[in-house]
């Protein structure tokens, strides 16, 4: 089929009638119509001429904008070189090793021609090739399996991306939020583990076709039932205005993606940012190394503190959501789960709502004053600041809470109380406001009752920690302790 030059506006390098090029390609096998590269009749097919031409063309300064002709020719010469390599490769096809060598040479050609001779820094790999230049390089770097299988980025590249991301986020006035799934935003159970008193839930499940209104779903194909935490839809909607959100779960990838479909059917909150345990770098641990955001701008919401060994300062620990009985059993709790009690967390007053307030507070602190110098702000110190507001002004003495052998100041509860902004002391004096005890019979407690100070059990501090708000002391009196006799902290309002 001939393409006449008159019918199409072409430059001299258009494909010509096959007769002229047959000599060059007659040794090719019929399967090889792969070369899109154009064959120009202007240049002869001898390689000496070609080499000479290439030299002259690449040496001279060609103005890319004005004349198309020299560029076309240069491209064309390029194509001819690649034709050449292709042809050589074709003939050597049966032998695999030479093919690999030829492919390296081929891709070398491509990279040289296209990247104007800047050496490639190999920012990352796809398979075992640098994805920029195609050379086979050693595979090091952080694996970003959740973006695509086989995709890895070098540490320098990750840092560079984080910096770019930081600037983009600042201009949008957003920070990063990493969310856990299980017991934080939802609670899942295997169908096998459903107790008889939970069977009523099967009739209350919402349709999977339209998940926007629902919160309890039956996933037959995964043998699971999932309950979303109350307030989660509003939480995600509000949080997405202030944060770019990631999911980071210890479930596997299909589970993570399915849950993301329930929480975010339109894909607008999380997009592709769904990290599962298959994508983590260290087993059984979570880390921010696969999150493309700077550490000082990332907040984490998780129910398990120990999952984040390196990032405790970024972490907001949330109270676990136990809806199903199997979930309580998993943590060896003896109390009844919410499904057994046929109740649920309060939506406007629940845990997620409290956490959302904290997120809003931290976010506004970060972006307040609208200053340009946001690079000095660190979300971790701001979080500490917010936390210290909770029990500000309280002075706490502990009575029979700590084992006598240990240093009081080192006890975790002391630390938590100090983190919440309270001052802790070992001896009573007039400025003390609260006595935390586990038993009514102690000296300190009797002193406190005499002096009309608050007497609470340690649940008061824990509740303040989880709910980010000072709790009414009446709910945590010692009589409560005797009544419950459990180690659970349930807030009664």
């Amino acid at each position, binding site marked *: 089929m001939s393409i006449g030059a008159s019918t199409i506006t072409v430059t001299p390098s258009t494909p010509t009638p096959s007769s002229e090029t047959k000599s060059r390609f007659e040794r090719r096998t019929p399967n090889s119509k*792969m070369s*899109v590269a154009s064959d120009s009749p202007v240049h002869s097919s001898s390689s000496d001429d070609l080499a000479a031409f290439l030299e002259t063309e690449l040496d001279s300064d060609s103005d890319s904008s004005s004349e198309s002709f020299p560029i076309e020719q240069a491209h064309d010469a390029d194509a001819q070189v690649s034709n050449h390599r292709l042809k050589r*490769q074709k003939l050597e096809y049966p032998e695999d090793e030479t093919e690999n060598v030829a492919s390296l040479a081929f891709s070398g050609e*491509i990279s040289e021609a*296209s990247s104007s001779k800047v050496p490639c820094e190999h920012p990352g790999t796809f398979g075992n*090739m640098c*994805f920029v230049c195609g050379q086979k390089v050693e595979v090091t770097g952080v694996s970003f399996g959740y973006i695509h299988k086989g995709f890895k980025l070098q540490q320098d590249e990750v840092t560079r991306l984080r910096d770019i991301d930081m600037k983009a986020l600042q201009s949008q006035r957003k920070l990063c939020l990493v969310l856990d799934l299980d017991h934080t935003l939802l609670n899942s159970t295997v169908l096998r583990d459903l107790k008889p008193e939970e069977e009523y839930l099967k009739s209350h499940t919402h349709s999977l076709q339209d998940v926007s209104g629902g919160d309890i779903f039956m996933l037959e194909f995964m043998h699971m039932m999932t309950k979303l935490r109350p307030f989660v839809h509003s939480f995600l909607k509000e949080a997405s205005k202030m944060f770019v959100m990631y999911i980071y779960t210890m479930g596997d990838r299909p589970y993570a993606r399915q849950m993301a479909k329930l929480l975010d059917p339109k894909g607008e909150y999380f997009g592709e940012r769904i990290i599962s345990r298959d994508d983590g770098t260290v087993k059984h641990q979570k880390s921010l190394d696969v999150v493309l955001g700077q550490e000082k701008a990332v907040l984490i919401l998780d129910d398990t503190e120990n999952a984040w060994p390196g990032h405790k300062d970024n972490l907001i620990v949330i109270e676990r959501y136990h809806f199903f009985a199997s979930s309580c059993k998993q943590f060896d709790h003896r109390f009844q789960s919410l499904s057994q009690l046929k109740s649920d967390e309060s939506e406007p007053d629940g845990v997620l709502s409290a956490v959302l307030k904290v997120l809003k507070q931290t976010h506004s602190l970060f972006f307040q004053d609208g200053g340009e110098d946001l690079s000095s702000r660190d979300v971790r110190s701001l979080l500490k600041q917010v936390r210290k507001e909770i029990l500000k002004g309280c002075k706490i003495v502990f009575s029979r809470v700590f084992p006598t052998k240990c240093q009081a100041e080192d006890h975790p509860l002391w630390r938590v109380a100090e983190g919440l902004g309270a001052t802790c002391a070992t001896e009573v004096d007039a400025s003390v406001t609260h006595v935390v005890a586990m038993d009514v019979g102690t000296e300190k407690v009797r002193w406190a009752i005499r002096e009309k100070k608050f007497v609470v059990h340690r649940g008061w501090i824990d509740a303040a920690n989880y709910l980010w708000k000072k709790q009414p002391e009446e709910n945590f009196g010692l009589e409560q302790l005797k009544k419950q006799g459990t180690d659970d902290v349930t807030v009664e309002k």
Partner: protein
Amino acid sequence: MFFHMVLERNMQLHPRFFGRSLRENLVSKLMKDVEGTISGRHGFVLAVTGIESIGKGLIRDGTPFVTFPVKYRCVVFRPFEGEVLEAVVTTVMQHGFFAEAGPLQLFVSNHEMQDGMEYQAGDIPNYTSSDASVRIQKDCEVLLKITTVSVVATEIFCLGSIKGKYLGLLNDRA
């Protein structure tokens, strides 16, 4: 590129499958073992179309298993450098986009795109040309040329390029 070729494989069969349906068992085991796998030399084995021959079975010493050399015809798909393919874009990133052509995963780096193409971040990340006439985003079809093929332990990864005449966006998402 697709090929329809004859491959050979030694199939081990447990005696419980012997009997009248020995050949059927052998064929179904072959199909289960081979279809969907990747061979470094031949690429993706897509479908077994027929059996050429089944050789004499040899009993392996010390075990009851019998090994049959089976020659079978199958359709394979193997990418080559320089091959031009249609692919569907799956993920778009700052560095380039990922696309897939059937079972084959490809990556096109932003260096291998036409000069005007810029990455646009956002809800739907995409690559847009300078005159906004071409926009490449998820689920678009593109015509691309394979520049490098790499086989890493039964996985095949390819790099591609849309820098060239007639390459690039074919259709908008349906």
